[in-house]
C-alpha cells in the first residue's frame, strides 16, 4: 500500500475519531485522535497495517498534556505519530500494554515522570527514579519546584566585583 492509500484507509475507517491530520513531510504524518479511541486505532495500525511501534513521548503544555505514539511502516518509509490531548486536572488514559508488550516500560516511565495514570496497566511501578524520591512529585511538569535542601546548584566560583 502506498502512503496515500494508507492515509485514505485510516480516514475512512475512523472518520469520527480523527480530529486533524497534519502532513509534515513525505516521511512523517501527525494524526490527532480523541482519547477514547486510542485502543482501536493503535491496534488497527499495529496488527492490520503491520507497523512497528517505535517509542512514545509526552509533553506538558500550558493548557493540556499530550502523548505521542510513534509507529513506523518500513516498506513505504512512513512514520505515523498519534497525538492525544489530555485535559488537566484529570490525567487518565487507557493503557496499550494489553495489546503489545513493547509499550510496557515506556508507559511506566511516562507515569513516573509526568504523572499520567494508565488504566489497565499490569505493573505500574517506578522505573528510573530512585527509591527515596518522594511520591507525587513529577519532575517534568511545568510546576515542578526544587524540593531537595541539600542540592548544590552553583559552581563554587566567587566572582570579584570591582
Amino acid at each position, binding site marked *: 500500500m502506498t502512503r496515500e492509500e494508507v492515509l485514505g484507509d485510516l480516514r475512512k475507517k475512523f472518520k469520527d475519531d480523527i480530529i486533524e491530520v497534519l502532513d509534515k513531510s513525505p516521511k512523517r504524518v501527525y494524526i490527532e485522535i480523541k482519547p477514547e479511541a486510542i485502543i482501536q486505532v493503535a491496534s488497527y495500525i499495529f496488527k492490520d497495517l503491520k507497523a512497528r511501534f517505535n517509542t512514545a513521548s509526552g509533553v506538558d503544555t500550558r493548557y493540556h498534556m499530550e502523548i505521542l505514539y510513534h509507529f513506523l511502516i518500513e516498506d513505504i518509509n512512513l512514520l505515523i505519530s498519534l497525538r492525544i490531548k489530555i485535559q488537566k486536572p484529570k490525567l487518565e488514559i487507557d493503557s496499550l500494554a494489553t495489546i503489545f508488550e513493547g509499550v510496557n516500560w515506556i508507559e511506566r516511565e511516562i507515569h513516573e515522570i509526568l504523572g499520567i495514570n494508565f488504566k489497565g496497566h499490569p505493573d505500574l511501578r517506578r522505573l528510573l*527514579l*530512585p527509591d527515596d*524520591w518522594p511520591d507525587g512529585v513529577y*519532575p517534568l511538569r511545568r510546576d*515542578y519546584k*526544587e524540593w*531537595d535542601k*541539600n*542540592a*548544590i*546548584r552553583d*559552581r*563554587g566560583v566567587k566572582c570579584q566585583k570591582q
Partner: protein
Amino acid sequence: MSIKLNALLNSPWLFHLSTGSCNNCDIEILDCLTPRFDIERFGMLLVGSIKHADVLLITGSGNRKSMERVKRLYEQIPKPCLVVAVGECALSRGMFIHSYNCPIPIDKVIPVDVYIPGCPPKPEAIIAGVVKLIEKVKAGTAKK
C-alpha cells in the same frame, strides 16, 4: 605510603566507572587503550574488579542512584589509590547543573586528584592529564 604509590605507578591498573554519562567520554577512554594511542605499552591495564585497581576513572554526572554505588566502590578500592575525573560532566555536572537528578558534584562525595576537562576530551588530553599526575606523584609534591 608514598613509596607504595610510587611503586604502583610504574604500571597502574585502571578501573572505569560511568555514573550516568552519554558514553562519549567512555568511548574516548577506550580509544586510549586501542593500538593507535597505545597506553597498554606503559602497563596500564583495564581490570574488571575494583579490588584489583590502582586508578579509578570516573565519567558522567552523578545520578542520585549511582552516587550510593560510587561511595561503596570508593570504600572497597585498596588504598593508596588515585581518582581521575574525565569530562565536563564529572567535573561539575556541566550543563546538567540544574537537573532534578544530579544534586551534588562528584568531588563533594569522594576526593578527586586530577580533573580532565573537555566534552569529550581528546585521547591526547587524557594521556597528558594522567602523565602530569604521575610526574607530580613521583616528584613527591602531590596531596598524598
